């Protein structure tokens, strides 16, 4: 199996646009996942009975094969990018919900009590005390969700989308390894870079942990 380097050289435009499309799908899904999981996590964290239900339900969702979710969404949103993003968001949501709840759980009760004793209202406590302290665990979730999302986008090639995943279908149909190799390498590269950027972001967002070191 050899790589046709000239093919790569000839297709830089296409590779760039596929990479951009791929990244856009993955990041949109993570963004929506964060937006939806934050309030849900607070609910799960605060309201005991709902917690089991929300976490349990999301665990079950996670076991549904991604290809199936994409296909089942077809009649809902058609052969469009929307379908891909909704499908991806299901998975990012599960990961983010889990980690955000865990993060909120990890905030020491004493800290919350201190805030309450100082007269801080619950919402303010949530925003200025709980979330910042939960940030490391939440960010771990964002990292996992982002990397997973970048990998999952290629599954959407079965419904005509797929970003870099289209290189896999193409290579498969024509017995042509080069686009497949390029697709795998680029996907991994994207994920590694995104992960590194998120680590940097976490470093920036949690100055109090830096000072301790």
């Amino acid at each position, binding site marked *: 199996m050899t790589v046709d380097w000239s093919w790569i050289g000839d297709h830089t435009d296409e590779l760039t646009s596929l990479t951009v499309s791929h990244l856009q799908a993955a990041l949109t899904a993570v963004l929506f996942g964060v937006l939806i999981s934050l309030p849900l996590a607070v609910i799960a964290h605060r309201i005991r009975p709902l917690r089991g239900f929300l976490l349990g339900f999301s665990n*079950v969702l996670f076991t549904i094969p991604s290809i199936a979710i994409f296909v089942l969404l077809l009649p809902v949103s058609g052969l469009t990018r929307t379908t891909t993003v909704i499908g991806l968001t299901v998975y990012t949501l599960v990961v983010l919900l889990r980690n955000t709840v865990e993060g909120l759980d990890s905030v020491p009760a004493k800290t919350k009590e201190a805030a309450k004793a100082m007269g801080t209202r619950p919402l303010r406590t949530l925003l200025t005390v709980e979330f910042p302290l939960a940030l490391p665990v939440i960010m771990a979730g964002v990292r996992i969700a982002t990397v997973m999302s970048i990998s999952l986008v290629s599954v959407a090639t079965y419904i005509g989308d797929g970003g870099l995943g289209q290189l896999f279908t193409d290579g498969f149909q024509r017995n042509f390894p080069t686009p497949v190799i390029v697709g795998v390498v680029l996907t991994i590269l994207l*994920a590694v870079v995104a992960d590194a950027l998120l680590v940097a972001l976490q470093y920036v967002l949690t100055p109090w942990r830096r000072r301790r070191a």
Partner: protein
Amino acid sequence: MYELLKNLGTWLTSGAQWTGPDGITHRLAEHLQYSLLATLIAAAIGLPLGLLIGHTGKGAFVAINLSSFGRALPTVGLVVLVFLAGGLSMLPVYVALVALAVPAIVTNTYAGMSAVDPDVRDAARGQGMRGHQVLFQVELPLALPLIMTGLRLALIQVVATATIAAYVSFGGLGRYVFDGLAQRDLVQVLGGALLVAVVAVALDLALSGLQRHLFRHRTA
């Protein structure tokens, strides 16, 4: 929506759907076979690796970041690549599933090993135990809960992903998803997806129950 669910009920309960080469029983058996074998192979690779890194402390960077890398690997791409290299066989499927399972096993095994109280290790060495004795008689038993968690997580992930076997013409529950997709038969797709989810959740519950039972006497 209601129509879909009603048809799904018919599909799941019709006797014909359960028998024959395309029946649920057969596909389920295939799916479990792929999943269990892949996890076994992954354990054969991942356990020794995790134990070694945990015991010697060297290569911790690998153990910690292997999960990230493994998560980034696009399963479809890997399957196609191995298929193009090696032809039509179950090899691409197993390579992809093992690649998916190994990181979870290594990371959790390493986590289990590194959680062993260093004092306990010192005490063991102080008693004159040699390296491998410390590993097998002290560290491994203590790390066992997390190791089992790793195996369980790996198995669940593999079960959910073994649908990929159908992409390269093989069986398993993924056959329902891919055939349903091609035939625009949503009932089949939904049926396949549901069965995978049920199997994964059932295995998860059974194994965590087993874990709890096995380690019921342990504190902390």
